[in-house]
């Protein structure tokens, strides 16, 4: 909050402006990258860190090989969070600012699992997103779409004993950015996740089914495996929708493998 409140700062430059760079060029680069070899990845099914169509990545990916390490000490234990840390009301983004936000009210729910399919219990989930018009509260967002005074777009919750999380929010709008000319991000919600090990930390983005911008977006397309990209897309689930109230989406999240042995896991259960 503190950083966003630094009104008037101009040090936060937006994404590089490339007004001459056409979507056709970016789309051709995406296709070439998908057809080409490898890419620098933390995980085999993760995004390529060296994904040139996302221009901001060019000076920010490691060119030297990542090193394999055996986790030890603090790496074996994620931080834990409790009832003091998170108010249950933080899971409802539609009641935070005093009035009803504009837009399509939705529920986003799912489970957080570790790489072996075990639920991640009582763990922190953080989200942030644009409003229904595609505008963030962030000082740095200069998109000339309306701010909604009744929507901050920030939420938190703790998973339950089965790893379930649930947020009530507004469906975010797509928004333009300055990667290239006429660049638009598909509608998405940013998610921040923890596992039981420090090494399972994950920040990602959840998308909505059928978005026409998927094929054009270099951030989404930085994941070259189509099946892996699909795992970032929520599914509409009618049983989660509520009569005359909201539409329901399900999105399950699978973290990397825990390094705990089965015996240790039982001790902690």
């Amino acid at each position, binding site marked *: *909050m*503190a950083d966003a409140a630094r009104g008037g700062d101009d*040090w*936060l430059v*937006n*994404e590089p402006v490339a007004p001459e760079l056409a979507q056709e060029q970016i789309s051709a680069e995406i296709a070439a990258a998908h057809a080409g070899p490898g890419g620098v*990845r*933390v*995980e*085999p099914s*993760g*995004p390529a860190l060296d994904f040139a169509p996302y221009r*901001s*990545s060019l*000076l*920010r*990916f*490691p*060119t030297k090989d990542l*090193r394999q390490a*055996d*986790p030890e*000490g*603090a*790496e074996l*234990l*994620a*931080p*834990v*969070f*409790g009832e*003091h*840390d*998170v108010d249950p009301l933080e899971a409802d983004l539609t009641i935070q600012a005093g009035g009803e936000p504009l837009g399509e009210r939705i529920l986003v729910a799912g489970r957080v699992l570790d*790489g072996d399919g075990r639920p991640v219990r009582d763990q922190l989930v953080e*989200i*942030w997103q644009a409003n229904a018009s595609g505008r963030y509260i*962030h000082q740095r967002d200069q998109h000339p779409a309306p701010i909604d005074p009744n929507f*901050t777009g*920030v939420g938190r919750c703790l998973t339950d004993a089965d790893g379930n999380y649930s947020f009530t929010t507004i469906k975010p709008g797509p928004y333009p950015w300055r990667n290239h000319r006429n660049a638009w991000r598909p509608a998405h919600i*940013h998610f*921040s996740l923890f596992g039981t*090990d*420090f*090494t399972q*930390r*994950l*920040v*990602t983005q959840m998308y909505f089914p059928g978005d026409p911008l998927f094929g054009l977006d270099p*951030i*989404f397309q*930085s994941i070259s495996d189509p*099946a892996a990209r699909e*795992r*970032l897309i929520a599914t509409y689930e009618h049983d989660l929708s509520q009569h005359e109230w909201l539409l329901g989406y399900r999105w399950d*999240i*699978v*973290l990397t*493998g*825990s390094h705990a042995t089965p015996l240790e896991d039982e001790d902690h259960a």
Partner: protein
Amino acid sequence: MPERTPGQTVGPFFHYALPYDGDRELVAPGTGIRLHGIVYDGAGSPVPDALIEIRQADAAGVVPVVPGSLVRNGVFTGWGRCATDRVGEYWFSTVEPGAVDGGAPFFAVTVFARGLLDRLFTRIYVPDHPALTNDRLLASLDADDRARLIATRGADGSLQLDLHLQGDNQSVFLTYPGHK
């Protein structure tokens, strides 16, 4: 086994969501040490929109598994978060971690940034510790890379290590068996 969810960049708009009051103060400022450094990109420019998280043992080498990192109430949780400032600097007010099970003490570190499509993991080792010579990761590296993982101690006891996302001085970034 379920299939893994891929990561995506933290993007440019996390500042109003992830930072919170006291996020970088694992202990009250002035009561412990300062851990700090600057995050650089491949052109040597500071990165003013990165987010650094650390996880660590306490001074006795015990990794706390206690809630309270968001609302600290004076509890040492061994976890903190810091967005870099306009000159790319991160800092934490914390204690120097002790050796866990006799290993070389280090801060476990996660790096997020606009332009960085997935999170990166690294370590910041405490300098001048006898266990550094037995550390398996350090032993697998050449002298230059080893030096890039070990903090420098300032006259006031602070620990300093810059992080380089790319370039000749690139930091040593890690993957773990669970990432395979």
